């Protein structure tokens, strides 16, 4: 075990898998010589050479298209999109080509590519350095969507994603890149995709959240202790495939559900989790399902602190499942 930040754990995960499997390649804008704008790929070019860790043009569509071509014939590319906000030039390649490769080839071809990208707000980056776009990708059959919230999970989920046969969007909560520290197993460490985690046990209300929102929800849960209510926090870790069982089990135990995400409310993945509870746990629900989310506006420039769910808003959301 070594204590690492989330960022170091991602770097360690990449290094571990590059050592393990020489089909693994890392590339993107500024990732090679510079080691990435957040330094997630630091040292990889020195260690593995320019063939396996290289810089690309400012060309997201080209980066992902190239990765797909490598993936379908024997390589394991891990391209980086510098900020998730810049992924849209590549949206077509991901949604139209990568996601449908397995289906349209009748299962003959797969696309084992992992697109890594920092996402989410909290660094005062404004409109295009802050967004949470997970829902677009969750809506596209054929993709997996993975979001770690701890260093150990970051490493273990990244390694599983690289080993997966299908394309994975690996979204990294940049706000906690350096603030979130924890013990990370050395060497081989695998966390399976599709298995969530109970972050904190509780009896009175289930809160489902991911990425940097876990920390926010933990603070809210502490505040609720004072009111004599214990809150259970569930981190699905992968939105697709979703650990439905874990969420439903928790909801059936507590009888209440709040979903928290940074992304705008309408069409956000929170609606999907609310629908899951409505379809499969309605008889256990003792109050309305609440969503605590960003607003239905572009990510703001000066009002970031208000836009992002904070512990107070989560507390209010939880209270509303009791008072209605």
């Amino acid at each position: 075990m070594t204590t690492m930040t989330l960022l170091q754990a991602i770097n360690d995960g990449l290094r571990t898998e590059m050592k393990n499997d020489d089909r693994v390649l890392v590339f993107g804008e500024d990732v090679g010589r510079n080691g990435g704008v957040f330094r997630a790929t630091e040292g990889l070019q020195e260690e593995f050479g320019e063939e396996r860790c290289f810089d690309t043009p400012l060309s997201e569509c080209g980066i992902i298209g190239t990765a797909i071509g490598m993936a379908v014939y024997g390589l394991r590319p891990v391209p980086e999109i510098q900020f998730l906000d810049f992924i849209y030039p590549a949206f077509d390649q991901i949604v139209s080509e990568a996601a449908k490769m397995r289906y349209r080839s009748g299962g003959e071809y797969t696309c084992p590519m992992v697109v890594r990208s920092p996402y989410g707000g909290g660094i005062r980056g404004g409109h295009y350095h802050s967004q949470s776009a997970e829902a677009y990708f969750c809506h596209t059959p054929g993709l997996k969507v993975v979001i770690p919230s701890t260093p150990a999970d970051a490493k273990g989920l990244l390694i599983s994603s690289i080993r997966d046969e299908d394309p994975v969007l690996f979204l990294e909560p940049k706000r906690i890149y350096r603030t979130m520290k924890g013990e990370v197993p050395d060497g081989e460490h695998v966390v399976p995709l599709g298995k969530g985690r109970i972050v904190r046990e509780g009896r009175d209300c289930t809160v489902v959240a991911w990425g940097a929102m876990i920390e926010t929800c933990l603070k809210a849960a502490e505040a609720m202790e004072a009111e004599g209510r214990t809150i259970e926090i569930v981190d699905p870790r992968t939105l697709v495939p979703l650990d439905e069982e874990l969420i439903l089990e928790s909801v059936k135990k507590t009888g209440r559900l709040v979903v928290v995400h940074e992304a705008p409310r309408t069409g956000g993945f929170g609606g999907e989790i609310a629908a899951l509870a409505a379809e499969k746990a309605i008889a256990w629900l003792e109050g309305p399902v609440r969503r605590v989310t960003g607003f239905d506006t572009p990510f703001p420039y000066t009002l970031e602190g208000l836009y992002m769910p904070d512990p107070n808003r989560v507390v209010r959301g939880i209270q509303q499942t009791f008072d209605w």
Partner: protein
Amino acid sequence: MTERTGIRPEQAMKMLRTMRTIRQLSERIIPLYPKDVMETPVHLCIGQEAVSAGLCIHLRDEDLMVLGHRTHGPALAKGLPLKSLVAELYGRTTGCSHARGGSMHVYDGEHGIPGSSAIVGGNIAVSVGLGLGRKLLGSEGIGVAYFGDGATDAGVFWESLNFAALKEVPVLFLCEDNGLSNVMPKSEHMFADPARIAGEFMPVYRADGTDVLSVYEEAGRAVAQVRESRGPAYLHCTTKRWMQHQGVLEDDLPYNPIDPEKDCPIVRFEEFLLRTRLATPGELAAVGEEIERDLDEAFAFAEASPYPDPEAMEV
């Protein structure tokens, strides 16, 4: 700096004023930025002022210019008032984008700036539509895309050249080539010379973007070409970025050496003005002082302006 005689003194002084405004604003931002009074990432234009000044002197308000993330220089040169830019940097409602935009998203309808985008390349295709719109609506104006060398990597750049050429769109593509895309040198991000290939689509002009007279002359030709032919042109200006890609620290990349005299468009132009007696040392000093007063006023205006109403999350 090559001797040229065609320039009128008031135009020369206007370009100097523009360049100095861009520079002196940057110099104010540098010590203030770490104090967190500005709510926005900033991409400064120090060293690149001649491109904006030499181009925009040929543009009118009816010419619609869209920008990338490095906005301060071209926006001020196109006519954006200093105080609405500074207020926007401060995140105040009196800013040019009503505190919704920040440094990378500036708008000024009055002066023909229908916006800028932090998405590199994102605005290039928009300029084609602006130009085509000008033509279809019977305006004399043209569209202008102002972008960096990094943007030429993006597919949308090539799509836009093709579209503009095929449809004979009055649009000027201006590449402000500082040789860098973030920390990547041009040789490592773009295989070919985009100006040469643009030549397959439209007339191409090249200027030394550290020499405002070179930009002035070539931009004059390029803009005239677009106005007269009502079709596209491309202008490539090579220049140098003095600061790091973002923020207020000086660049220290070994492959981007800066000579603060030879590479400085302002030093070079002031020498020219003195040598040709277009200005006296006293006049040059007066320009700088006047801009300092404008800056005092703009910053005071910004600081006294209100923040957006937290209730007004939606526009």
